[in-house]
């Protein structure tokens, strides 16, 4: 593919994905998976999981971060910035437009009904995503990830501990284990 064509494709795909980002940024993961992994085979499922983890561990909007990482992987640094622009533009244009006629928009029963329906669709898509991703984690030989996943879920959902606290905690645990293992390994 010509490089300008690839850039244009990347911009279009991110613009398109972003237009459908209802119900939180996570919905972007199955969309990137469908287009980049399953249709175009630009990277693997394992790489997607890695990107999702990085996007989530970085500050800012997960949807934008993930688009940028996928863009970087497909088309270098230029791809990253093209993706960022494509991912931000739809919500930017829509919000800029709506901020002037907000009241008329808010009271539209048709829009409300569509959104209420979409909530259930988003829930189903995310449930499927979690099922597939968890299966990938539990297939690994390492035991630690098998513990981290459910514990993180319970801490975040039941105890409502902030994501940042949990991520920092697991970083410390992981580094601590590495230090201990390294101490052991050096003697062997």
């Amino acid at each position: 593919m010509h490089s300008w064509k690839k850039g244009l494709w990347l911009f279009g795909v991110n613009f398109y994905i972003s237009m459908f980002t209802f119900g939180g940024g996570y919905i972007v993961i199955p969309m990137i998976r469908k287009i980049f992994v399953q249709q175009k085979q630009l990277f693997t499922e394992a790489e997607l999981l890695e990107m999702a983890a990085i996007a989530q561990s970085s500050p800012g909007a997960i949807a934008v971060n993930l688009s940028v990482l996928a863009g970087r992987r497909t088309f270098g640094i230029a791809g990253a910035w093209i993706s960022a622009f494509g991912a931000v533009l739809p919500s930017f244009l829509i919000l800029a437009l709506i901020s002037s006629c907000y009241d008329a928009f808010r009271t539209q029963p048709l829009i409300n009904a569509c959104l209420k329906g979409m909530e259930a669709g988003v829930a189903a898509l995310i449930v499927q995503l979690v099922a597939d991703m968890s299966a990938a984690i539990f297939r690994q030989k390492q035991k630690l990830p098998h513990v981290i996943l459910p514990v993180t879920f319970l801490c975040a959902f039941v105890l409502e501990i902030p994501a940042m606290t949990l991520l920092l905690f697991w970083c410390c645990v992981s580094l601590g284990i590495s230090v201990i293992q390294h101490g052991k390994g050096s003697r062997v």
Partner: protein
Amino acid sequence: MSLILDLFLTFLKIGLFSIGGGYATLPLIQQQAVVVHPWLTLQEFTDIITLSQMTPGPLAVNTSTFVGMRLAGMAGAAAATGGCVLCGIVISLALQHFFRRNQNQRAVLQLLETLKSASVGLIAASAATIIMIALFGVSSWKQTLHFNPSAFLLFLLALISIQKWKLGPMPILILSALAGCFFYL
């Protein structure tokens, strides 16, 4: 000009400190845009949240565009939105670079594996919250639940279409929006 710079810097700060995304960032935005700067009233802030739920895109991006537009037109909206996403873009690119560079280091590899499973755990928690909102109308299990049978039916139909007929995310969203019109209008 100073207002535009102020918008950029404030949303840069909001972007930098909002790890975990979504509703975790709300108190921070409220603090900065309602309390520290007299940019929005509390009512306007609540309105933006409703608006964000009705329009595509990340909440923080939507809020920054709305606030920037209100205060300083297109230039303000661009400054606020750019500031909001910049830190995330740069830091995630740097992290990706770091992990690629140190692929062979055991400690780094282990850290990435740890973050991966924690990330799936967080997505699972968010899925649970989304289910609560869609089927019970509340965002926390601590609140009173109001079970919505038609939403449950829609949820099951969507799940079956994904599993059996392998429908992609876009068709599912469009079909569930249409079904929403049918059920709720």
